[in-house]
């Protein structure tokens, strides 16, 4: 089986440590795994739906949609028709167009938040697990504290302090998602740290940074990637929840959350204004979950449910 290295191979040869870690490195099987990922299964379906959303978000301005900001009082709260497939909102704006433009806010909030959370979680989890001691305690007790707050309440308080808006909602979602990611990386680090190849690397005097990056990190990535994909689903839902409470992306810029918030006011007379944005949230969250499950089956068979 040909080996494909994801991480740059270092020039220093670390004797038996390298071959040991290469054998235990799940990424050496990645070539094969990506091929299997393309077979029809949960992961593939998830990726297909996701690609559709990403393309939709990128292409939104050139799709010849109605102007998402064009107010049309005579057309307000109309049900779905040929002219307005998803109907119109309380200002007569085209809902299809607003939902598609909302994809941009919602998707970018989720991607930015999970991207930051994954990197920070990786660094904190690796160092807390590898070095342990006081630093490990500080990191783990901090995750306990964050986890003791219900995420919506924590978000509400933080938004009260730093104000609503796109970048602040990203900060809140990062904070909410961090504990899980830190814990999963730390857990894997604790297990890998005891393995012979890590011991070998340490015993020949390789610096800690080298041992962590070359031997520990690759073995923590599979679970982290799975958790990040599943976390994306939660991030999408969190964005919609905060938007729904009026704490997220502020109108008139559409996001699925604030569309739901606006739709709620007209739930009785125009239920489509609540149903449509919610359907988008469900489908996107569902596809991230499918992707997560698909990745779990490929990368992390031990934790397969």
């Amino acid at each position, binding site marked *: 089986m040909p080996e494909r290295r994801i991480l740059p191979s270092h020039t220093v040869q670390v004797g038996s440590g390298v071959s040991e870690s290469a054998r235990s490195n799940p990424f050496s099987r990645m070539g094969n795994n990506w091929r299997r990922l393309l077979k029809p299964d949960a992961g593939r379906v998830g990726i297909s739906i996701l690609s559709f959303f990403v393309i939709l978000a990128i292409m939104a301005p050139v799709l010849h949609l109605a102007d998402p900001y064009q107010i049309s009082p005579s057309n307000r709260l109309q049900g779905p028709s040929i002219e307005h497939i998803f109907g119109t909102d309380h200002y007569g704006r085209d809902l299809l167009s607003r939902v598609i433009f909302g994809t941009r806010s919602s998707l970018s909030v989720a991607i930015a938040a999970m991207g930051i959370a994954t990197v920070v979680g990786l660094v904190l989890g690796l160092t807390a697990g590898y070095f342990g001691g006081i630093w490990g305690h500080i990191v783990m*007790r*901090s995750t*306990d*504290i*964050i*986890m*003791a*707050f*219900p*995420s*919506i*309440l*924590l978000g*509400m*308080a*933080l938004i*009260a*302090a*730093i*104000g609503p808006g796109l970048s602040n909602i990203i900060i809140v979602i990062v904070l909410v998602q961090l504990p899980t990611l830190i814990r999963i990386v730390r857990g894997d680090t604790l297990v890998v740290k005891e393995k012979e190849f890590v011991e070998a690397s340490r015993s020949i005097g390789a610096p800690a940074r080298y041992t962590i990056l070359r031997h520990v990190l690759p073995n923590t990535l599979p679970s982290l990637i799975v958790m990040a994909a*599943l976390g994306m*689903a*939660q991030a999408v*839902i969190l964005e*919609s*929840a905060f938007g*729904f*409470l009026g704490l997220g992306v502020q109108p008139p810029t559409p996001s699925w959350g604030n569309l*739901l918030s606006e*739709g*709620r006011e007209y*739930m*009785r007379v125009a*239920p489509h204004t*609540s*149903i449509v944005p*919610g359907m988008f*949230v*469900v489908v996107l*969250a*569902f596809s991230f*979950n*499918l992707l997560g*499950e698909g990745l779990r089956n490929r990368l992390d068979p031990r934790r397969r*449910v």
Partner: protein
Amino acid sequence: MARYLLRRLVLTIPVVLGVSIAVFVIMRMIPGDPVTIMFGDVTSVGQAASADELERLRDQLGLNDPLPVQYVKWMQRVAAGDLGNSLIEGTPVSNAILTRLPATLQLSVGALVLALAVSLPIGIAAAVRRGSVVDKLAVGISSLSVSVPSFWLALIMIIVFSVYLGWFPTGTLPEEGLFSSVISLFKGDEQPFVDWFNHAVMPMTALAFSMLAPLIQITRFSLLEVLDADYVRTAKAKGLAPRTVLTRHALRTALIPVLTVIGLQFAYLLSGTVLIETIFRWPGIGTLGYNAMRRQDYPTVQGVILVVGIMFALVNLLVDAIYAVLDPRIENA
């Protein structure tokens, strides 16, 4: 076991302290202090107070003390049960929380019971008949449960069951809560309970739905593990009925991890109640916190978050205690 519980209790203390420090710091980060919020814009009621006057009030309220001093003073008051007064109503925050806590507990405990009643049978059936239709159904329900936002489910239920079908009222807790309606139930009057159920069924279902996935998955997973264990094989080998093996031997062990997940779910539950309570105008602490935040009533927000955070730490401590009672192996750990 006593040593284990003591150790857990000691580990809970830094979390509770950390929670209080975090709440304190977040609340001090809010732009504009209470004095500005209360008296900064009073043009509608009269002449604005002078800057000196406002400064004297800040001194009175201790807002000019160094932050650590303010924190210690605040914690002293909190320890005595004083969470400060609402900036809007002027009444003690602790009273507001105490009067609203029962409504939230009814909703969250009801949702938990409902979620367990649905997810335990499904999880057990999925593990016993691995790969069967029930197992696939379990996977399907789990995926839906993690993908559908609870507040959206609540909106859809209102549209379908209240607006179109008119089966259930759209919200709020009736005068007689769960406790008193159950008492009437025993006295032979079922009307209050029916009334309570009609009001609570939609918010409870919306809350319970998002808890199904973790509960089903942990039940199925831990039962699958136990079913492969030697002692279960021994029980089968000595000729016990499959049902007896399951109930007397396998489930006893398998349900212990489920307990831990229930403890963790409690936080999600309290998070969900904020959204669900505001949708159904449920008079719980979620609505209290949300409305307080909208009106910049920060002592109330601070009190709600602190109480919820401490409640969560205590619930997990309780779960660990039950865990230790149920699982004798803990003693040696």
